[in-house]
């Protein structure tokens, strides 16, 4: 009962809104709204009315369109980039130095003995067409050879290329067609003949030839493949032992004015370069097994990288030449991205679908780490063993010829596969904070001829405690790493369009076309609510009328003109006609016919417009 009463009361209160019909409501709204157009619609003549109506409509649609544009711009999550350049105290980058040759050859010799002998024979085969066969073949270990033999493809007759194993004279006839031919490869040189590596699956059913246009490349590749095979079976500790020890590699060190020594370097085992030494890494010693010797270069290879990132020396490293002083000016190039939804990047790699294998080495995510992990992942899936250049996931084993005889075929197949690369590139995301080191490299001969003698003497004594000079110009490198005058360049992203920008532009547009504000929108909302109310009331009245079967209209006059309605709402004291109100009983005095010429005084109007009345009166007097 109480609730109903309260509701009724509320209903009544709401009914006292701006009007009782739609028309009234609209007129009231137009007259009282703060947006600029609607008022004009009602207070002008018919021609202007139409014009203003069209203008208001046009502007309202313009505002809506522009708002759409702005919201779309905002939702495109653009970024603006700020670039700062200057000098500040920076963390010195971690410096990884490796010998370009991974192992001390003297120590690795026993392992590579068979391979080297084979290599020598291969070279002889290629270079000297008529070797003394008997003595060359005796001690060779053909188990290695048969895994991935080098073959000579004679293309002198392009229609029938003749494939011939380099050692096919020794009984192992892999290829039927080649076996019968009477040794044409013996007299064959570069343009006619190509070296290729034959890679076969386990039972030798499917073979591919990896062609090389140059014998140098073929031999190097072949040697690398075989050597890694050998090293993959050697325990990690032994490999580390074969590498260069820190005290032999780092002879003297200065950081600023502070002396430092090889003890300040962290050893890390890198498969391609053996023992590498990282200065300023601040991590516990970690090792990565496996190797890939390719000792063509003399000198050292170094890479600058951020602390807590893994040094990808093969991709990012640079050479320092033996017998020179290499000065490296460093500029730190930092990139800071906003992350989702602004740019597709990852903060720590946790949202990338690939397991970061380098995380075990306490390093942060980087895209190189992701790509390598991805490759290893594919390798394990298709070849069921891991490549030794990359870290192993738990429970997996590295590939070698004994256990996985067809891994080489599988590996080269995978490496050439475009699909694998595309998938990896699509799966890996960039990291949001990225640091690159831009280097300016300059070189000078070192040591100078004048100082050569004493420098070698001192260094030899320090290293080997011998008075003999054990070092030579080709064995030492001096590195200077310093910051350039401007040592950092930061590219930082920030949101181009923030919510403040959006609001101020929305406000600007609304204000520009219609002079509106948020309050106008609230006004509009209010009107809509009123509209709904009126509809409800009408519906209620209609249903009531239906129930009482009384279909007569509340009044039978012509509808009130706009002008009257205007007057009704600009002048609060003005009541044009009581019949407009459905609650006629609220005005009982209106029932009696009004006395013409003397309406009841309405003092409200007097108080409301003092200026106007004065003026109109004076004008009336003048007339």
């Amino acid at each position, binding site marked *: 009962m109480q609730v109903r009463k309260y509701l009724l009361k509320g209903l009544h209160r709401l009914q006292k809104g701006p009007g009782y019909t739609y028309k009234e409501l609209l007129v009231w709204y137009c007259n009282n709204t703060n947006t600029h157009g609607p008022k004009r619609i009602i207070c002008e*003549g018919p021609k202007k009315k139409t014009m203003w109506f069209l203008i208001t409509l046009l502007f309202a649609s313009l505002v809506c369109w522009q708002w759409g544009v702005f919201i779309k711009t905002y939702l495109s999550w653009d970024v603006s980039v700020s670039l700062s350049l200057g000098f500040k105290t920076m963390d010195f980058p971690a410096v990884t130095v490796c010998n370009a040759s991974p192992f001390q050859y003297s120590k690795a010799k026993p392992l590579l003995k068979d391979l080297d002998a084979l290599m020598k024979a291969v070279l002889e085969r290629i270079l000297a067409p008529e070797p003394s066969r008997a003595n060359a073949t005796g001690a060779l270990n053909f188990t290695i050879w048969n895994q991935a033999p080098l073959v000579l493809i004679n293309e002198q007759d392009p229609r029938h290329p003749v494939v011939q194993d380099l050692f096919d004279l020794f009984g192992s006839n892999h290829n039927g067609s080649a076996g019968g031919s009477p040794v044409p490869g013996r007299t064959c040189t570069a*343009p006619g003949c190509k070296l290729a590596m034959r890679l076969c699956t386990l039972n030798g059913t499917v073979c591919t030839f990896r062609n090389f246009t140059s014998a*140098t490349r073929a031999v190097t590749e072949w040697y690398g493949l075989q050597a890694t095979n050998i090293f993959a079976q050697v325990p990690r500790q032994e490999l580390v032992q074969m590498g260069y020890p820190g005290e032999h590699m780092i002879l003297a060190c200065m950081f600023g004015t502070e002396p430092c020594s090889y003890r300040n370097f962290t050893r890390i085992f890198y498969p391609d370069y053996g023992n590498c030494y990282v200065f300023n890494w601040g991590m516990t010693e970690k090792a990565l097994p496996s190797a890939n010797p390719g000792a063509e270069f003399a000198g050292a290879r170094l890479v600058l990288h951020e602390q807590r990132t893994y040094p990808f020396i093969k991709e990012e490293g640079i050479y320092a030449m*033996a017998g020179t002083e290499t000065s490296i000016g460093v500029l730190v190039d930092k990139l800071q991205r906003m992350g989702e939804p602004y740019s597709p990047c990852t903060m720590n790699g946790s949202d990338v679908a690939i397991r970061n294998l380098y995380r075990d080495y306490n390093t942060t995510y980087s*895209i190189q780490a992701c790509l390598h992990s991805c490759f290893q992942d594919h390798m394990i899936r298709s070849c069921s063993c891991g490549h030794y250049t990359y870290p192993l996931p738990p429970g997996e084993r590295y590939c070698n010829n004994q256990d996985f005889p067809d891994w080489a075929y599988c590996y080269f197949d995978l490496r*050439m596969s475009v699909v694998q690369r595309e998938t990896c590139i699509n799966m890996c995301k960039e990291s949001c904070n990225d640091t690159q080191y831009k280097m300016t490299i300059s070189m000078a001969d070192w040591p100078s001829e004048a100082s050569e003698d004493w420098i070698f003497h001192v260094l030899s004594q320090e290293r080997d405690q011998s008075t003999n000079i054990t070092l030579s110009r080709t064995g030492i490198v001096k590195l200077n790493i310093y910051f350039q005058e401007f040592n950092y360049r930061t590219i930082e992203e920030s949101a181009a369009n923030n919510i403040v920008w959006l609001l101020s532009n929305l*406000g*600007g547009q609304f204000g520009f076309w219609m002079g509106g504000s948020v309050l106008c929108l609230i006004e509009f909302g209010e009107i809509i609510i009123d509209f709904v109310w009126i509809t409800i009331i009408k519906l209620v009245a209609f249903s009531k009328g239906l129930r009482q079967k009384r279909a007569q209209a509340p009044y039978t006059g012509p509808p009130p003109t706009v002008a009257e309605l205007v007057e009704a709402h600009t002048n609060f004291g003005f009541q044009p006609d009581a019949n407009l109100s459905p609650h006629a009983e609220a005005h009982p005095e209106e029932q009696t016919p009004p006395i013409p010429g003397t309406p009841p005084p309405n003092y409200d109007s007097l108080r409301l417009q003092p200026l106007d009345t004065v003026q*109109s009166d004076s004008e009336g007097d003048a007339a």
Partner: protein
Amino acid sequence: MAPGEKIKAKIKKNLPVRGPQAPTIKDLMHWYCMNTNTHGCRRIVVSRGRLRRLLWILCTLTAVALIIWQCALLVFSFYTVSVSIKVHFQKLDFPAVTICNINPYKYSAVRDLLADLDQETRGALKTLYGFSEVKSRKRRGAESENPAWGGIRPKFLNVIPLLVFNEKEKGKARDFFTGRKRKVSGNIIHKASNVMHIHESKKTVGFQLCPSNDTTNCATYTFSSGVNAIQEWYKLHYMNIMAQVPLEKKINMSYSAEELLVTCFFDGMSCNPRNFTLFHHPMYGNCYTFNNRENETTLSTSMGGSEYGLQVILYIDEEEYNPFLVSSTGAKVLIHQQNEYPFIEDVGTEIETAMSTSIGMHLTESFKLSEPYSQCTEDGHDVPVENIYNAAYSLQICLYSCFQTKMVEKCGCAQYSQPLPPNANYCNYQQNPNWMYCYYKLYQAFVQEELDCQSVCRETCRFKEWTLTTSLAQWPSEVSEKWLLRVLTWDQGQQINKKLNKTDLAKLLIFYKDLNQRSIMESPANSIEVLLSNFGGQLGLWMSCSVVCVIEIIEVFFIDFFSIIARRQWQKAKEWWARNQGPPCPEAPPGQLGQDHPALHVDEDLPTFTSALQLPPAPGVQVPGTPPPRYNTLHLARAFSSQLADTQVLDEP
């Protein structure tokens, strides 16, 4: 009546064209100020007291001025750009790589052409510096045995004599060959010495270039070092000789791809010389471009690191080097876009023999906005210089084309180191005896920006740039040298019938360090939406105005204002006419006024309340004898017959 006319009549009836409602300008102003939505104006009217009104007038005017100023600033700064730098990780197109031997032609092949020139050069060296090639290499032994002039008059020294300048004798030079002293007119150009002051040695060497038949107006070039002088002098003659050799012959004299490229390896796959396209450069001979989109595909890399880049071993045949033309050994490498012309002489990277040069690349791509934001050009079609190169437009191409065109215009022949424009020939003595003088003069003008080339040519809007990090290592290492050289010799096969030497080879690695592409992009800082919303912000901030207000202002101040004035004038004219005509109908002026008054055309358009208030009582209306007090203003508004009728109809029930 036709339906069109009907509609017209209806429109005319429903939407009659009428003048402004206000009778006078003062009324109009008042009405405007009271009813406008802009703030400030109302204050002027409402305020009491002169000072306050004045203050409000000032405030309003200041606000208007501020709006105009700020909006002008917004408009002027509309064409600004904002720069954004983006770094993407993606599969990258490998650039085109052009590799040249520094020495253009095999010395054994061009020796016949250059025999006379070389002999004279040697002779000049002997006479000037006492250099003789007694202990020089064997291969030139045969010629160098007779460096004496042998009685014949040398032809090259005769055309451009080398001169020796003595510091003591200003303005005098000695022709070293004839020994004859000659007077040198004032126009001495010291190469490089106008930039920096080099310690002047006692003796400087130079040469003099004169217009064909006018020896008084010669330009003399001196060099701080004899090395430069001899080389420059040699180069001039060399260009002369080579300009007369047909292109096919030149290509044959230079190195073939099979000779230059010993091995090639790209992205883990072998490649061969067929993957390289020949490009003949006038000063570098045969150059070879890798990945030049010859079969419409551009190679790309999807992995960073040296393993996945281009690895080549080059054969630099040092024995075939020209001793006077080039003094360094090695190769030149240029990394460029596929459709770009390789300006190898300007921007190449030199690589050393017996070394492995590893070049790590970083790609930066730049996009600029063209007109009206900046002066750059998209493809050069709007630059008034004909592109004589068979390549996409670039600033350098434009500059060289401009120079070459000017050269053909002024000197009548084309310079040798740039392509030929249509209907032109390369310069040589036989046809253009004084082209060198002309060329030097023109080049001087070009460098000093007197040829307008620099102002005419515009930069391109988009360009790719590869930042290179170059590092060197000795190669091959001592232990691997032996077998490596042997296998490489085998690789070369019949190409060369000799054992390769370490100093004949150079190894080159070109790779992307990582696949991060940096793009620097310009984008418009302002769009039309932002501009409008800024306008809106300004208008709203100062006056709470909008476009509606602006339309209002236009309506009130430009349409109503003038129509009121016009009406006034018309009335005055009519009055004057009536007075002149005599008084046929004295009621006319008030009637006119009444007719003109908008409130009287009430048949369709009902008066607004405000306008009704300002109405003078209509002439025909009877003012009631005992007018009620103030509130009868309401009734005044209804004093029109039509409206009364309406009211009565409403009141009836």
